[in-house]
């Protein structure tokens, strides 16, 4: 058990533990009271796209197929107005060694840990990233510890996380499973301090740079297959690395006009730190419980600065309901012969709706799939949902209510996205930024510039919003 003194003592060493365990001194990148040199932080790692690609090749990460979903597109056109219904492609990231795009993130993190002579890596994650780190660590001969939030106070494991426990243990990792709560961070710090292992955080520069290859590859593949860059790329959005890395990779390939859309499952009304709600979410990532707090304030993480800064990169942010994602998962299997997991299918469900807004010759890329299996499957989630008293029914997705009712659409034309108001998100970000200021700190011109870049707005906008906050 933790005694309060050791808790305080550990928390006060937090900055030092972080610095040691990432081998990066973030303080040298600070340029203002809020501002830091984001581009230099990333560039100083030395991992440009081609270096990252070469490292990833050594463990068979990346170079995943791009597949046109012709039957799904045909179904979009059943629902769309004449002449509408863009072509939908998917990048089959499930083909990576541990079954998701997270291998891209883990490969650079583990490579970096090895370079810096760490003997092991630690990651705090209940998702695919744990398996990815464990897989990469196994290949690199490093020890691996994964800390998961895994079960509720009744001892009921979230099935998808149970599958990740199995996967991580399968790769020879130690898995620390915790019940619900943000104090996981304390346990994580303790492990870092005790072991001296590398913090393979999801939010280091390595973890985000590893995803640039995904955006880059898909731009090149679409260009080769279709002679143009994609019109739209949709990414399932949680902590922000997926959107950030993909968008940066697209730009590095020259796809500057491609619109980047972030998509999350709507879990509004459910509390992320609630023991009661934990097994009533039916999704473990790609949902608003992560994407809202992370988009409006990315630096709430296990490193001093989050390298995933999604608001800088999204042209649009949409939500989709749980039932719509389950619907599309079933359709993907039956019309395209692809059984894939829930997270990638979140952006596919959004693509199904957005394709109806666009002309038939337009190209939408769903930038990932993930593997599926026991626990990580609609049957597992919906059986648990029923057990927890959540109603599962056919109907209008508008009646879907997270934690209460999951509505499987009656017709594909009912699949729609809800736009998140980006102006609202920007204001919320700036509100958080002002709250982060300490007594007596004042924003400089550099800070205002930084906030404009962060919110993808202008200095005037930032000034106006900040003045209105007082």
């Amino acid at each position: 058990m933790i005694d309060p003194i050791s808790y305080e003592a550990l928390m006060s060493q937090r900055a030092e533990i972080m610095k040691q365990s990432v081998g990066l001194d973030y303080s040298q990148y600070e340029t203002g009271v809020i501002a830091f040199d984001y581009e230099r932080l990333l560039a100083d790692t030395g991992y440009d796209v081609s270096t990252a690609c070469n490292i990833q090749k050594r463990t068979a990460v990346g170079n995943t197929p791009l597949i046109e979903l012709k039957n799904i597109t045909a179904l979009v056109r059943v629902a769309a107005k004449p002449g509408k219904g863009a072509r939908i492609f998917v990048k089959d990231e499930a083909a990576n060694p541990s079954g998701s795009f997270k291998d891209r993130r883990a490969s650079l993190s583990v490579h970096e840990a090895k370079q810096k002579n760490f003997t092991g890596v630690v990651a705090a994650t209940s998702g695919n990233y744990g398996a990815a780190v464990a897989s990469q660590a196994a290949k690199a001969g490093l020890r691996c510890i994964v800390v998961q939030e895994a079960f509720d106070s009744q001892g009921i494991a979230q099935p998808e996380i149970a599958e990740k426990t199995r996967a991580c243990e399968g790769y020879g990792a130690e898995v620390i499973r915790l019940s619900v709560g943000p104090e996981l961070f304390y346990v994580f710090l303790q492990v870092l301090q005790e072991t001296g292992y590398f913090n393979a955080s999801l939010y280091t520069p390595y973890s985000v740079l590893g995803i640039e290859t995904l955006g880059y590859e898909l731009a090149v593949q679409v260009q080769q297959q279709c002679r143009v860059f994609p019109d739209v790329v949709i990414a399932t959005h949680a902590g922000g690395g997926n959107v950030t890395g993909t968008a940066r990779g697209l730009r590095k390939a020259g796809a500057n006009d491609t619109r980047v859309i972030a998509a999350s499952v709507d879990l509004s009304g459910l509390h992320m730190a609630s023991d009661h709600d934990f097994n009533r979410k039916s999704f473990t990532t790609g949902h608003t419980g992560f994407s809202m707090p992370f988009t409006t304030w990315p630096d709430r993480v296990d490193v001093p600065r989050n390298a995933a800064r999604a608001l800088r990169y999204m042209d649009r942010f949409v939500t989709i309901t749980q039932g719509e994602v389950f619907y599309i998962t079933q359709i993907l299997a039956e019309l395209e012969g692809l059984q894939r997991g829930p997270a990638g299918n979140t952006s596919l469900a959004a693509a199904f709706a957005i394709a109806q807004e666009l002309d038939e010759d337009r190209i939408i890329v769903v930038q990932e799939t993930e593997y599926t299996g026991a626990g990580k499957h609609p049957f597992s989630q919906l059986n648990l949902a029923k057990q927890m008293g959540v109603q599962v029914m056919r109907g209008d997705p508008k009646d879907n209510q997270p934690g209460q009712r999951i509505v499987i659409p009656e017709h594909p034309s009912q699949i729609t996205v809800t736009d998140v108001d980006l102006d609202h998100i920007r204001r919320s970000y700036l509100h958080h930024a002002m709250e982060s200021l300490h007594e007596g700190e004042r924003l400089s011109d550099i800070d205002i510039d930084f906030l404009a870049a962060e919110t993808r707005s202008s200095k005037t906008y930032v000034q106006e919003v900040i003045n209105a906050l007082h």
Partner: protein
Amino acid sequence: MTELIEKDTWVEIQNIILPAGERAPQVPDDTQQVPLEMRVKGFLVEPAALGDEVEIVTPVGRRLRGKLVDVNPAYTHQFGAPIPELSVLGREVRTMLRQRGQLK
């Protein structure tokens, strides 16, 4: 007499990290009312019985102590029964595509 579990058996231990009522201030009431619990698997260091306070060696070689709660713990996550609301979808959409001449 309870049977002892052999040394080097793959087992699971449990610890209470924070008792109910002493959780972080920001957690909601329902979480505040339950303990923060930790479970880890590893190889048993000395023979012991379920419920004993024991030491394990984890796959990375760390030695951890806790209450012995499970022996060779099973992975019990599964698919379960098919979900009727999903099982009908393939037929529905194939019919739509056929009516449009998009499928044979």
